[in-house]
Protein backbone atom coordinates (compact mmCIF):
# COMPACT_ATOMS: atom_id res chain seq x y z
CA UNK A 1 0.00 0.00 0.00
CA UNK A 2 2.79 2.39 0.96
CA UNK A 3 4.59 1.55 -2.30
CA UNK A 4 1.45 2.28 -4.30
CA UNK A 5 1.10 5.70 -2.72
CA UNK A 6 4.71 6.57 -3.47
CA UNK A 7 4.25 5.49 -7.06
CA UNK A 8 1.25 7.75 -7.42
CA UNK A 9 3.27 10.70 -6.19
CA UNK A 10 1.35 10.95 -2.96
CA UNK A 11 2.99 11.58 0.39
CA UNK A 12 4.40 8.43 1.87
CA UNK A 13 4.56 7.43 5.47
CA UNK A 14 7.91 8.22 7.00
CA UNK A 15 7.35 6.28 10.19
CA UNK A 16 4.77 4.00 11.62
CA UNK A 17 4.26 6.09 14.68
CA UNK A 18 5.84 9.29 15.91
CA UNK A 19 7.48 8.76 19.32
CA UNK A 20 5.21 9.78 22.14
CA UNK A 21 2.30 10.41 19.81
CA UNK A 22 -1.18 9.03 19.72
CA UNK A 23 -1.73 5.64 18.12
CA UNK A 24 -3.37 7.07 14.96
CA UNK A 25 -0.76 9.81 14.46
CA UNK A 26 1.65 9.27 11.58
CA UNK A 27 4.12 11.59 9.87
CA UNK A 28 4.63 11.68 6.11
CA UNK A 29 7.34 12.75 3.74
CA UNK A 30 7.01 13.94 0.15
CA UNK A 31 8.02 11.63 -2.67
CA UNK A 32 10.43 12.89 -5.36
CA UNK A 33 7.45 13.25 -7.70
CA UNK A 34 5.65 15.28 -5.06
CA UNK A 35 8.67 17.53 -4.56
CA UNK A 36 8.88 18.06 -8.34
CA UNK A 37 5.20 18.94 -8.46
CA UNK A 38 5.61 21.42 -5.60
CA UNK A 39 8.60 23.05 -7.30
CA UNK A 40 6.63 23.47 -10.52
CA UNK A 41 3.79 25.10 -8.62
CA UNK A 42 6.24 27.39 -6.85
CA UNK A 43 7.73 28.55 -10.13
CA UNK A 44 4.44 29.19 -11.91
CA UNK A 45 3.14 32.74 -12.16
CA UNK A 46 0.92 33.65 -9.27
CA UNK A 47 -2.69 34.48 -9.89
CA UNK A 48 -3.40 38.18 -10.15
CA UNK A 49 -4.66 40.02 -7.07
CA UNK A 50 -6.89 39.77 -5.15
CA UNK A 51 -6.02 36.05 -5.02
CA UNK A 52 -2.99 36.94 -2.97
CA UNK A 53 -2.93 34.02 -0.61
CA UNK A 54 -1.16 31.95 -3.26
CA UNK A 55 1.65 34.47 -3.44
CA UNK A 56 1.85 34.65 0.35
CA UNK A 57 2.29 30.88 0.45
CA UNK A 58 4.97 30.94 -2.22
CA UNK A 59 6.85 33.62 -0.32
CA UNK A 60 6.60 31.55 2.85
CA UNK A 61 7.71 28.28 1.26
CA UNK A 62 10.35 29.44 -1.20
CA UNK A 63 13.79 27.89 -1.23
CA UNK A 64 17.05 29.82 -1.72
CA UNK A 65 17.47 28.55 -5.27
CA UNK A 66 13.93 29.67 -6.14
CA UNK A 67 14.45 33.24 -5.01
CA UNK A 68 15.21 34.81 -8.45
CA UNK A 69 12.04 33.29 -9.80
CA UNK A 70 10.03 34.48 -6.82
CA UNK A 71 11.44 37.98 -7.25
CA UNK A 72 10.06 38.00 -10.79
CA UNK A 73 6.71 36.69 -9.57
CA UNK A 74 6.48 39.49 -7.05
CA UNK A 75 7.51 42.04 -9.65
CA UNK A 76 4.81 40.73 -11.99
CA UNK A 77 2.28 41.37 -9.23
CA UNK A 78 3.59 44.92 -8.88
CA UNK A 79 2.92 45.55 -12.56
CA UNK A 80 -0.58 44.12 -12.21
CA UNK A 81 -1.25 46.52 -9.32
CA UNK A 82 0.03 49.43 -11.42
CA UNK A 83 -2.30 48.32 -14.19
CA UNK A 84 -5.22 48.50 -11.77
CA UNK A 85 -4.17 52.02 -10.76
CA UNK A 86 -4.08 52.98 -14.42
CA UNK A 87 -7.56 51.52 -15.00
CA UNK A 88 -8.84 53.48 -12.04
CA UNK A 89 -7.36 56.67 -13.39
CA UNK A 90 -8.98 56.16 -16.81
CA UNK A 91 -12.33 55.31 -15.24
CA UNK A 92 -12.25 58.45 -13.15
CA UNK A 93 -11.27 60.60 -16.14
CA UNK A 94 -14.11 59.16 -18.21
CA UNK A 95 -16.58 60.07 -15.48
CA UNK A 96 -15.58 63.76 -15.74
CA UNK A 97 -16.33 64.43 -12.09
CA UNK A 98 -17.15 67.96 -10.98
CA UNK A 99 -14.53 70.00 -9.12
CA UNK A 100 -13.82 68.74 -5.59
CA UNK A 101 -15.04 72.05 -4.21
CA UNK A 102 -18.55 70.75 -4.94
CA UNK A 103 -20.00 68.05 -2.73
CA UNK A 104 -20.53 65.48 -5.49
CA UNK A 105 -16.99 65.95 -6.79
CA UNK A 106 -15.45 65.73 -3.35
CA UNK A 107 -17.25 62.49 -2.58
CA UNK A 108 -16.02 60.92 -5.81
CA UNK A 109 -12.45 61.95 -5.08
CA UNK A 110 -12.70 60.36 -1.63
CA UNK A 111 -14.03 57.13 -3.11
CA UNK A 112 -11.28 57.07 -5.71
CA UNK A 113 -8.69 57.71 -2.99
CA UNK A 114 -10.03 54.82 -0.94
CA UNK A 115 -9.51 52.44 -3.85
CA UNK A 116 -6.08 53.93 -4.54
CA UNK A 117 -5.02 53.47 -0.93
CA UNK A 118 -5.65 49.75 -1.27
CA UNK A 119 -3.43 49.42 -4.34
CA UNK A 120 -0.83 51.73 -2.87
CA UNK A 121 -0.58 49.58 0.26
CA UNK A 122 -0.31 46.46 -1.89
CA UNK A 123 2.44 47.99 -4.01
CA UNK A 124 4.38 49.11 -0.97
CA UNK A 125 4.20 45.60 0.48
CA UNK A 126 5.26 43.98 -2.79
CA UNK A 127 8.21 46.32 -3.20
CA UNK A 128 9.37 45.58 0.32
CA UNK A 129 9.07 41.82 -0.25
CA UNK A 130 10.97 42.02 -3.52
CA UNK A 131 13.73 44.07 -1.98
CA UNK A 132 14.24 41.63 0.89
CA UNK A 133 14.08 38.60 -1.42
CA UNK A 134 16.76 40.16 -3.61
CA UNK A 135 18.83 40.84 -0.51
CA UNK A 136 18.42 37.25 0.64
CA UNK A 137 19.37 35.93 -2.75
CA UNK A 138 22.47 38.10 -2.92
CA UNK A 139 23.48 36.91 0.53
CA UNK A 140 22.79 33.29 -0.40
CA UNK A 141 24.94 33.59 -3.50
CA UNK A 142 27.74 35.21 -1.52
CA UNK A 143 27.54 32.48 1.12
CA UNK A 144 27.52 29.65 -1.40
CA UNK A 145 29.93 31.28 -3.83
CA UNK A 146 27.44 31.03 -6.66
CA UNK A 147 27.37 34.70 -7.63
CA UNK A 148 27.36 34.66 -11.40
CA UNK A 149 27.44 38.24 -12.48
CA UNK A 150 29.94 40.71 -11.03
CA UNK A 151 27.58 43.61 -11.72
CA UNK A 152 24.67 41.91 -10.04
CA UNK A 153 22.59 44.20 -7.94
CA UNK A 154 23.56 44.21 -4.31
CA UNK A 155 20.91 45.14 -1.82
CA UNK A 156 22.23 46.09 1.58
CA UNK A 157 19.24 45.13 3.65
CA UNK A 158 20.38 42.24 5.79
CA UNK A 159 17.88 39.40 5.89
CA UNK A 160 17.20 39.26 9.56
CA UNK A 161 13.64 38.02 9.42
CA UNK A 162 12.51 34.58 10.45
CA UNK A 163 12.01 33.78 6.78
CA UNK A 164 15.61 34.67 6.04
CA UNK A 165 16.86 32.42 8.80
CA UNK A 166 14.71 29.61 7.46
CA UNK A 167 16.06 29.80 3.93
CA UNK A 168 19.62 30.56 5.05
Amino acid at each position, binding site marked *: MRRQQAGAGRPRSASRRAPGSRADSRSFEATPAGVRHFEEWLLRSSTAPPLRDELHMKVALCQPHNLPRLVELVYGQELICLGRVQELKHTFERMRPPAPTRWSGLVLVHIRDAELSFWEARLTWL*QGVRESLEGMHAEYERATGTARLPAQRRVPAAPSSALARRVG
Partner: protein
Amino acid sequence: MLAKRRPSVRERGPFGGMRVGALLSLKSVGKSYWRGDTEVRVLHDVTLDVRAGEVTAVWGTRGSGKSTVLKLAARLETPDSGSVFFNGVDLASLSERQHARLMLEWIGWVRRAGPQSDLRMLDYVALPLLAAHGRRDAYTRAEAALERVGLSALARQRWGSLCDGERALIGIAHGIARAPRLLLVDDPTANLDVVERERVTELLHSLADEQAIAVLMAVPDMPAAMHADHIFSLGGGRLSSASMPPPVPPADELEHGKVIHLRGRQQVL
Protein backbone atom coordinates in the same frame (compact mmCIF):
# COMPACT_ATOMS: atom_id res chain seq x y z
CA MET B 1 10.24 90.55 -47.21
CA LEU B 2 10.55 89.02 -43.81
CA ALA B 3 13.77 89.60 -41.95
CA LYS B 4 15.47 86.49 -40.76
CA ARG B 5 14.65 86.03 -37.12
CA ARG B 6 17.61 86.20 -34.79
CA PRO B 7 17.83 83.07 -32.64
CA SER B 8 16.88 83.68 -29.05
CA VAL B 9 19.37 83.29 -26.23
CA ARG B 10 17.80 79.92 -25.46
CA GLU B 11 18.14 78.73 -29.05
CA ARG B 12 21.79 79.83 -29.25
CA GLY B 13 22.66 77.80 -26.16
CA PRO B 14 24.10 74.29 -26.09
CA PHE B 15 20.68 72.74 -26.56
CA GLY B 16 19.66 74.56 -29.75
CA GLY B 17 15.98 74.69 -30.63
CA MET B 18 13.39 72.27 -29.40
CA ARG B 19 13.63 68.78 -30.80
CA VAL B 20 10.96 66.26 -31.43
CA GLY B 21 10.70 63.44 -28.90
CA ALA B 22 11.45 63.29 -25.21
CA LEU B 23 12.75 66.49 -23.63
CA LEU B 24 14.36 64.56 -20.81
CA SER B 25 15.62 61.00 -21.10
CA LEU B 26 17.19 58.79 -18.50
CA LYS B 27 18.87 55.81 -20.14
CA SER B 28 19.74 52.77 -18.02
CA VAL B 29 20.66 54.97 -15.08
CA GLY B 30 22.09 53.46 -11.92
CA LYS B 31 22.82 55.28 -8.70
CA SER B 32 24.12 54.16 -5.31
CA TYR B 33 24.84 55.83 -2.03
CA TRP B 34 27.08 54.67 0.78
CA ARG B 35 25.78 54.44 4.32
CA GLY B 36 28.90 53.62 6.27
CA ASP B 37 30.29 50.44 4.73
CA THR B 38 27.02 49.56 3.07
CA GLU B 39 26.18 50.40 -0.50
CA VAL B 40 22.57 51.41 -0.95
CA ARG B 41 21.55 51.02 -4.57
CA VAL B 42 18.58 53.33 -5.08
CA LEU B 43 18.30 53.22 -8.86
CA HIS B 44 18.94 50.17 -10.99
CA ASP B 45 18.84 50.38 -14.77
CA VAL B 46 16.24 53.14 -14.76
CA THR B 47 14.97 54.33 -18.14
CA LEU B 48 12.48 57.18 -18.35
CA ASP B 49 11.29 59.63 -21.02
CA VAL B 50 9.62 62.92 -20.12
CA ARG B 51 7.90 64.76 -22.98
CA ALA B 52 6.85 68.36 -23.45
CA GLY B 53 3.20 69.00 -22.66
CA GLU B 54 2.92 65.96 -20.39
CA VAL B 55 3.03 65.35 -16.66
CA THR B 56 5.06 62.35 -15.55
CA ALA B 57 4.66 61.24 -11.94
CA VAL B 58 7.10 59.02 -10.10
CA TRP B 59 5.46 57.44 -7.08
CA GLY B 60 7.45 55.77 -4.33
CA THR B 61 7.75 55.45 -0.60
CA ARG B 62 10.14 57.52 1.50
CA GLY B 63 13.74 56.79 0.59
CA SER B 64 12.87 54.99 -2.64
CA GLY B 65 14.95 57.37 -4.78
CA LYS B 66 12.30 59.73 -6.20
CA SER B 67 14.20 62.87 -5.32
CA THR B 68 17.36 61.31 -6.74
CA VAL B 69 15.61 61.02 -10.11
CA LEU B 70 14.84 64.75 -9.98
CA LYS B 71 18.40 65.62 -9.00
CA LEU B 72 19.77 63.49 -11.83
CA ALA B 73 17.43 65.26 -14.25
CA ALA B 74 18.95 68.60 -13.25
CA ARG B 75 22.51 67.19 -12.98
CA LEU B 76 22.60 68.04 -9.30
CA GLU B 77 23.68 64.40 -9.00
CA THR B 78 25.61 62.37 -11.54
CA PRO B 79 24.65 58.78 -12.36
CA ASP B 80 27.02 55.90 -11.56
CA SER B 81 26.00 54.25 -14.80
CA GLY B 82 23.87 55.21 -17.78
CA SER B 83 23.21 58.69 -19.14
CA VAL B 84 20.80 61.58 -18.79
CA PHE B 85 19.89 63.53 -21.91
CA PHE B 86 18.19 66.92 -22.04
CA ASN B 87 16.76 67.79 -25.44
CA GLY B 88 19.17 65.26 -26.93
CA VAL B 89 22.27 66.57 -25.14
CA ASP B 90 24.10 64.35 -22.66
CA LEU B 91 24.19 66.32 -19.41
CA ALA B 92 27.57 64.80 -18.57
CA SER B 93 29.07 66.67 -21.52
CA LEU B 94 28.09 70.13 -20.23
CA SER B 95 30.60 72.57 -18.82
CA GLU B 96 29.82 74.23 -15.49
CA ARG B 97 28.83 77.38 -17.33
CA GLN B 98 26.49 75.50 -19.64
CA HIS B 99 24.98 73.69 -16.69
CA ALA B 100 24.33 76.97 -14.91
CA ARG B 101 22.62 78.23 -18.03
CA LEU B 102 20.53 75.07 -18.22
CA MET B 103 19.31 75.64 -14.69
CA LEU B 104 18.60 79.33 -15.30
CA GLU B 105 16.83 79.11 -18.63
CA TRP B 106 15.44 75.64 -19.10
CA ILE B 107 14.66 74.00 -15.80
CA GLY B 108 12.31 75.18 -13.10
CA TRP B 109 12.42 73.57 -9.70
CA VAL B 110 9.39 73.65 -7.43
CA ARG B 111 10.51 73.41 -3.84
CA ARG B 112 8.61 72.98 -0.65
CA ALA B 113 10.85 75.35 1.29
CA GLY B 114 10.13 79.05 1.05
CA PRO B 115 12.41 82.08 1.26
CA GLN B 116 14.90 82.24 4.09
CA SER B 117 14.32 85.97 4.54
CA ASP B 118 11.07 87.79 5.20
CA LEU B 119 10.33 88.73 1.59
CA ARG B 120 7.01 89.63 0.08
CA MET B 121 5.84 86.85 -2.23
CA LEU B 122 6.13 89.10 -5.29
CA ASP B 123 9.79 89.80 -4.43
CA TYR B 124 10.42 86.11 -3.77
CA VAL B 125 9.10 85.08 -7.20
CA ALA B 126 10.85 87.99 -8.97
CA LEU B 127 14.23 87.49 -7.26
CA PRO B 128 15.73 84.85 -9.62
CA LEU B 129 14.64 86.93 -12.65
CA LEU B 130 16.32 90.20 -11.71
CA ALA B 131 19.77 89.46 -13.10
CA ALA B 132 18.59 88.17 -16.45
CA HIS B 133 15.60 90.41 -17.14
CA GLY B 134 16.03 93.64 -15.22
CA ARG B 135 13.76 94.95 -12.50
CA ARG B 136 10.70 96.00 -14.51
CA ASP B 137 10.53 92.85 -16.64
CA ALA B 138 11.26 90.61 -13.66
CA TYR B 139 8.35 92.04 -11.69
CA THR B 140 6.04 91.84 -14.70
CA ARG B 141 6.89 88.16 -15.09
CA ALA B 142 6.52 87.53 -11.37
CA GLU B 143 3.09 89.14 -11.35
CA ALA B 144 2.06 87.00 -14.34
CA ALA B 145 3.27 83.85 -12.58
CA LEU B 146 1.33 84.70 -9.42
CA GLU B 147 -1.75 85.42 -11.49
CA ARG B 148 -1.39 82.09 -13.30
CA VAL B 149 -1.52 80.18 -10.03
CA GLY B 150 -4.39 82.33 -8.80
CA LEU B 151 -2.54 84.12 -6.00
CA SER B 152 -2.27 87.71 -7.24
CA ALA B 153 -4.03 88.83 -4.10
CA LEU B 154 -1.21 87.45 -1.96
CA ALA B 155 1.62 89.28 -3.78
CA ARG B 156 2.36 91.44 -0.77
CA GLN B 157 1.96 88.76 1.85
CA ARG B 158 4.89 87.10 3.66
CA TRP B 159 5.65 83.36 3.68
CA GLY B 160 4.82 83.04 7.36
CA SER B 161 1.26 84.21 6.85
CA LEU B 162 0.40 81.64 4.16
CA CYS B 163 -1.31 78.29 4.61
CA ASP B 164 0.20 75.08 3.18
CA GLY B 165 -1.96 75.15 0.05
CA GLU B 166 -0.93 78.72 -0.73
CA ARG B 167 2.72 77.89 -0.13
CA ALA B 168 2.50 75.03 -2.61
CA LEU B 169 1.07 77.38 -5.24
CA ILE B 170 3.72 80.03 -4.52
CA GLY B 171 6.35 77.32 -5.06
CA ILE B 172 4.86 76.61 -8.48
CA ALA B 173 4.77 80.34 -9.35
CA HIS B 174 8.45 80.53 -8.36
CA GLY B 175 9.19 77.53 -10.58
CA ILE B 176 7.37 78.78 -13.69
CA ALA B 177 8.38 82.45 -13.51
CA ARG B 178 11.39 81.86 -15.78
CA ALA B 179 9.20 80.05 -18.32
CA PRO B 180 11.13 76.78 -18.11
CA ARG B 181 10.74 73.91 -20.53
CA LEU B 182 11.10 71.33 -17.78
CA LEU B 183 9.51 71.68 -14.37
CA LEU B 184 10.82 69.43 -11.61
CA VAL B 185 8.41 69.14 -8.71
CA ASP B 186 9.28 67.39 -5.46
CA ASP B 187 6.30 66.27 -3.41
CA PRO B 188 4.01 69.18 -4.35
CA THR B 189 1.09 68.01 -2.23
CA ALA B 190 2.77 67.45 1.14
CA ASN B 191 0.50 68.40 4.05
CA LEU B 192 -2.36 69.40 1.73
CA ASP B 193 -5.97 68.41 2.18
CA VAL B 194 -7.92 66.77 -0.65
CA VAL B 195 -9.25 69.98 -2.18
CA GLU B 196 -5.85 71.71 -2.12
CA ARG B 197 -4.14 68.61 -3.49
CA GLU B 198 -6.54 68.39 -6.43
CA ARG B 199 -6.09 72.09 -7.13
CA VAL B 200 -2.29 71.81 -7.20
CA THR B 201 -2.14 68.69 -9.35
CA GLU B 202 -4.74 70.04 -11.79
CA LEU B 203 -2.75 73.26 -12.06
CA LEU B 204 0.41 71.33 -12.94
CA HIS B 205 -1.50 69.41 -15.57
CA SER B 206 -2.96 72.54 -17.14
CA LEU B 207 0.47 74.26 -17.11
CA ALA B 208 1.95 71.33 -19.01
CA ASP B 209 -0.92 71.38 -21.43
CA GLU B 210 -1.10 75.12 -22.10
CA GLN B 211 2.58 76.02 -22.07
CA ALA B 212 3.99 72.74 -23.41
CA ILE B 213 6.07 72.32 -20.27
CA ALA B 214 7.37 68.88 -19.43
CA VAL B 215 6.54 68.23 -15.78
CA LEU B 216 8.34 65.56 -13.78
CA MET B 217 7.04 65.21 -10.26
CA ALA B 218 7.91 62.95 -7.36
CA VAL B 219 4.99 61.99 -5.17
CA PRO B 220 4.81 59.78 -2.07
CA ASP B 221 1.09 59.07 -2.36
CA MET B 222 -0.82 57.70 -5.31
CA PRO B 223 -3.77 60.18 -5.34
CA ALA B 224 -1.31 62.99 -6.09
CA ALA B 225 -0.32 61.17 -9.28
CA MET B 226 -3.84 60.80 -10.61
CA HIS B 227 -3.75 63.86 -12.89
CA ALA B 228 -0.44 62.80 -14.44
CA ASP B 229 -0.29 61.54 -18.01
CA HIS B 230 2.17 58.80 -17.03
CA ILE B 231 2.50 57.14 -13.63
CA PHE B 232 5.63 55.25 -12.65
CA SER B 233 6.34 53.33 -9.51
CA LEU B 234 9.80 53.42 -7.98
CA GLY B 235 10.76 50.81 -5.41
CA GLY B 236 13.61 48.41 -4.76
CA GLY B 237 15.62 50.33 -7.37
CA ARG B 238 13.25 49.56 -10.22
CA LEU B 239 11.13 52.06 -12.08
CA SER B 240 7.95 50.45 -13.39
CA SER B 241 4.83 51.45 -15.22
CA ALA B 242 1.58 49.72 -16.05
CA SER B 243 2.55 49.55 -19.70
CA MET B 244 5.56 47.34 -19.01
CA PRO B 245 5.20 43.68 -19.98
CA PRO B 246 5.02 41.27 -17.07
CA PRO B 247 8.33 39.48 -16.52
CA VAL B 248 6.69 36.17 -15.72
CA PRO B 249 5.29 33.97 -18.49
CA PRO B 250 1.75 32.71 -17.91
CA ALA B 251 1.50 29.40 -16.11
CA ASP B 252 0.43 27.46 -19.21
CA GLU B 253 3.58 28.57 -21.06
CA LEU B 254 5.86 27.28 -18.37
CA GLU B 255 7.29 23.90 -19.24
CA HIS B 256 9.67 21.87 -17.24
CA GLY B 257 13.21 22.34 -18.54
CA LYS B 258 12.36 25.51 -20.44
CA VAL B 259 15.06 28.18 -20.44
CA ILE B 260 13.87 31.58 -19.35
CA HIS B 261 15.76 34.82 -18.94
CA LEU B 262 15.84 36.42 -15.54
CA ARG B 263 17.33 39.89 -15.72
CA GLY B 264 20.05 38.94 -18.16
CA ARG B 265 20.76 35.53 -16.68
CA GLN B 266 19.66 32.25 -18.13
CA GLN B 267 18.06 29.81 -15.77
CA VAL B 268 16.87 26.35 -16.60
CA LEU B 269 13.71 25.54 -14.77
